[in-house]
């Protein structure tokens, strides 16, 4: 299937939202790949950080929201400090997560967790889980 690219897609709501939440000008990215080259989590990502940025440039909302990448991102800021064009990629990742979270979908139901599981999990994991996976 050919991907249709149009003015409407390039300037869709998703792109506007990401731009607003991250405060980043996505046009600046010239796809050098520096961000992905240094990312410590890229080995398990389905879209590399530069591909996430590219997908924003092309207005591919569905590709990004269905990607695991923003959730695997460790927010270590390696990409941000290294980007030759000064783009704060970590903020873009955060913006993607924010958009998902604002849909107020709960992926974890605290009440449904087994007592044993809760006992085994480090508290920080639970905090992260609530932070990232609940509305």
């Amino acid at each position, binding site marked *: *299937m*050919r*991907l*249709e*690219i*149009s*003015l409407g897609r*390039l300037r869709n709501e998703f792109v506007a939202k990401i731009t607003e939440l991250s405060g980043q*000008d996505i*046009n*600046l990215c*010239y*796809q050098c790949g520096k961000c992905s080259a240094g990312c410590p989590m890229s080995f398990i990502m389905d879209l590399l950080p530069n*591909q996430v940025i*590219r*997908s924003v*440039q*092309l207005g*591919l909302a569905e590709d990004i929201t269905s990607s695991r990448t923003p959730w695997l991102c460790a927010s270590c800021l390696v990409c941000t400090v290294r980007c030759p064009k000064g783009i704060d990629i970590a903020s873009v990742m955060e913006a993607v997560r924010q958009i998902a979270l604002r849909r107020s979908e709960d992926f974890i139901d605290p009440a449904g967790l087994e007592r044993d599981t809760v006992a085994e999990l480090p508290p920080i994991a639970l905090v992260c889980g609530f932070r990232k996976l609940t509305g």
Partner: protein
Amino acid sequence: MARQERIGVFVCHCGNNIAGTVDIERVVEELSHYPGVVHVEDYMYMCSDPGQELMRKAIQEKALTGIVNANCSPTLHQRTFRRVAEAEGLNPYCVEIANIREQCSWPHADDKETATRKAIAIIKATVEKLRFNMALTPTVTPLTKRVLVIGAGIAGIQAALDIANGGYGVVLVEQDIGIGGHVMQLAGTFPSLEQPDSLIASRLAEVASHPLVKLYTYAEVEEVSGYVGNFDVKIRQKAGYINRGRCNACGMCLEKCPVLVSSEYDCGLSQRKAIRLPSPAALTFHPVIDVEHCLHFNGSQCQACCEVCPEGAIDFSEEDTFVEERIGVVVAAPGYDLLPVGQPEAYPEDPDIIDGLKFERILSATGPTNGEIRRPSDGKVPREVVFISCVGSRDPEHGVPYCSRVCCMYVAKQALLYRQAVPEGQAYIFYMDIRSDAKGFEEFVQDVMDEGGILYLRGEVSRMFRDGDKIKVWGVDTLIGRNIEISADLVVLARAMVPRPTTRELTRKLNIASDAHGFLTEAHIKLRPVESLTSGIYLAGTAQWPRDLPDTIASAEAAASKVLSLFSREELLHEPTIAWVDEEICSGCEQCVANCTYKAIEVDKRSNVARVNEAICEGCGSCAAICPSNAVQLKNSTPRQFFEIIDVAAG
């Protein structure tokens, strides 16, 4: 032939380059009792000051009549050593180089014995050659300090101005009715975006009114004969059917002419009359009648222009005239074209699929839409414009293999100008790589990308076709690995830059070479970049290779400075190691004449023997090689000398 009987041999160690492989002591020993050799000496670096001093001393003390320098390739130091000899009163053509580095010590670095024996053989063979060398003096030819510049694009104009401002006369010949070439069609120029009229109008005005520049427009070079320093050119002044002296440029004829023809200047986007003027900025206001389209010349009685002209300037009986000019050197600057429509692959013919120059006209304030961006088919303002880079370029299978060097930059410029004119518009640029390697260029491209509304897509296009109001473009974005479809209002193709088809004919007239694509060939791509292989003919601008304005102007200035450095001499010195005819033997068979690329040899009708034009002969030896009776020989490279060399080398 004179025999050189007091020969000196100087063997250079070249540090370890030669001495590390060749046993220098043995070489010196072997040569020291070779017949005719009266002095042998070796030194660490012969080319150094102390090395040269050894030569000087030996020439004086041993009264040497010839020298063999055994060292590196003659292209490096033959000149150095010949100068030393000349300063000591020894004829420089009695100094020969025996190359024992590139041809001996380097390739045989692993075999000292072979290298040493070979070095000895090379030096002895050179001594044998030198024995029969004649003392020669360069030929002197007079120099006409006047220049023919062909093509009044920006390259030709710049070269003409530099030479004229240096105080020498220039004959500037332009085939078109106006001057300036393609640059006049541009809307703005990267990276600083000046419009051509503000950028080069002053140059155009200066060249058109310069007291030392004789400008012929609507003219062609018919014939060139002679050689460096003394060319005779015949110029055809095409009939324009309008008396230039009488025409007062009122333009009434233009109004009345009933024939409409698609305009070359506007790339077919507007129409002109059969009687026409050059582009508005081209500064030559003489209209000419285009016989191909004028009704009068095509069987009708039309006299409309004639009837209305208040000065009676129109003269249908005018004929082409010829002017002869004597000049010393030529600068060829016939410029470029774009790869024609239909090549390389069949992108459909559609009024909304256009090339870069056409889009320049659409963007230009002097264009058919006065700078409003309107597409050709229906005049609609295009909201989405697709640019395709490398159309025909970098495509050895279907187009040309080279990179056209300007399109990456003008595509970025055009996208930016488009967005400035249509702020809500969207530009898409398909590209393979972005080549932006000159001063300020990368910064320019990045600014364009940062601008927004301009999306670069890394990949090429496979198809495009009309779909109602739109042109569907199918391509790929290799960065995300997906095929892409865009519905465009207008498509701009960055077609490859190619030489003008007429340039081939010009190369024949000038007797200069062009490459497989038709670009003019330089004498050496690195060391002699603006000279042709024919002495006295220089190259400038895009006829040689795709160039942008900075490079075009730099090449024109380089050609002009070559001319000026030549003109700083009063006469021309020519290498004397050229062909020589033994008139007793020559039978006038003319085989040499056909074989000489430089047209330097001809058979004298009266005496029926070949004569060499010493000013033209380059000493290539083609004539000597083909002559069935050995009547032509190269001075200091005679068959006898080669037989001696072979004897030594084989023995």
